[in-house]
């Protein structure tokens, strides 16, 4: 396949305190098999070799599971293909000569640290507030002692696969973190192991979510549409139910 050319417009910001701006770059010799991050690697190689600072972005596993990467590409978190993280987005999904605007996630709760890197520690704080089942190592009973129907267990899995990338917040017009929080609440609500602490958990996690400055859910469904792991809106409904039950 022939090489491709792109016009990139990338948000550059030195650190949290300074103001940022968009910088344009032309990039050619992009192979359609390259991932979006590899395309940026190619740009960065060029920048570094000429002594300039490369575009900073979070990334690690590059196979769609660690949740590190995430960019707002042409108006869409993780780019145009639903169900993919940025690291899995191949350049063949773009057209030769396309202009691509790349922005960091924007939310009050996710301040920009540098270029395309944002601080997502708010997510960790929500999980610390209650995203766990309190069982001490050694205290567990035999794994098959509690039977769980396959349907329930599979459903819990579908909620549990959230990678914590923040695309739900990035795509929500209100920068709400409800999908993220509801995925964890749902996982534990669907499993008997999670029931003991269900009430305390949902109260604590919702309270922490509010404290972090995320917006409110207005059921637009943007999060579901842009979640790379296709976590469903039904989780939010379940979170709501769990919350009412907790009072």
């Amino acid at each position: 396949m022939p090489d491709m050319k792109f016009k990139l417009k990338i948000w550059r910001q030195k650190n949290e305190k300074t103001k940022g701006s968009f910088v344009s770059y032309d990039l050619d010799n992009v192979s359609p098999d390259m991932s979006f991050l590899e395309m940026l690697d190619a740009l960065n190689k060029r920048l570094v070799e000429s002594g300039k600072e490369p575009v900073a972005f979070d990334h690690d596993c590059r196979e769609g599971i660690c949740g590190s990467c995430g960019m707002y590409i042409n108006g869409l978190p993780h780019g145009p293909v639903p169900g993919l993280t940025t690291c899995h987005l191949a350049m063949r999904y773009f057209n030769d000569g396309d202009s691509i605007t790349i922005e960091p996630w924007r939310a009050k709760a996710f301040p920009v640290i540098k270029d395309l890197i944002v601080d997502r520690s708010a997510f960790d704080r929500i999980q610390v507030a209650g995203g766990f089942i309190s069982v001490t190592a050694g205290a567990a009973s035999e794994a098959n002692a509690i039977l769980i129907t396959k349907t329930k267990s599979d459903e819990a899995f579908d909620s549990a696969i959230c990678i914590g990338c923040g695309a739900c917040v990035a795509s929500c017009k209100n920068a709400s973190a409800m999908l993220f929080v509801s995925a964890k609440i749902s996982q534990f609500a669907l499993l008997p192991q999670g029931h003991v602490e269900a009430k305390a958990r949902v109260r604590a996690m919702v309270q922490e979510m509010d404290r972090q400055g995320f917006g409110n859910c207005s059921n637009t469904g943007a999060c579901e549409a842009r979640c790379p792991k296709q976590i469903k809106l039904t989780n939010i409904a379940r979170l709501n139910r769990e919350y009412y039950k907790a009072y």
Partner: protein
Amino acid sequence: MNKILFSAVSKKFVMALAGLFLLLFLPVHLGINLMLLKDDPQPFNSAAHFMATFPLVKVVEVLLFLTILIHVVYGITLQIQNWLSRPVRYEVSNRAETSAFSRFMIWTGGSVLIFLIIHFFNFYFIKLGLVEGDPENFYAIAWQLFTIPGYVILYWVCFILLGFHLFHALQSAFQTLGLNNDFWTPVIKGLSLIYAIVVPLGFAVIPLVIWLIK
């Protein structure tokens, strides 16, 4: 207590309940309005009279105004919070695949509120004696208003926007109340669509029919 009443989930809960209550009220109002289509003003006027004087309705009326107030205040508060949650906007506007109706609730809701205020001036305040007019003959007032083309156009536009608002509102309320599953949600979405078309259409045909009769 604060946590319960003002958490992100509770605020939505209140919004949804208030909204659903208003959704119940609309068909009642529509039912009375349809009496405008009769040549005889009597049924409409006595219905209006009944609504204005029957004690139980009085209680419901207070509840209704309270609901509207809560729905409006909460709606505006939530919206402001939501705007503040993203202090720096995106350069390229969000293209996420969502229904347009869901994204403009504050605007469709706001338009409905403006209409409501006009509506109060036209009818409700007369009843309260704040504005001049005959509270026993709303039939005539309504017929008279529907002869003003500008008013009718405004009326139609507002009801189209109300339809948009209702389409998202009904299904959204169920989601907020935690009533979402793979089987019922599509059904509720279907019902939302029907409701959002039938009710505003019912209101909107009244001036049209009146025009045609004339």
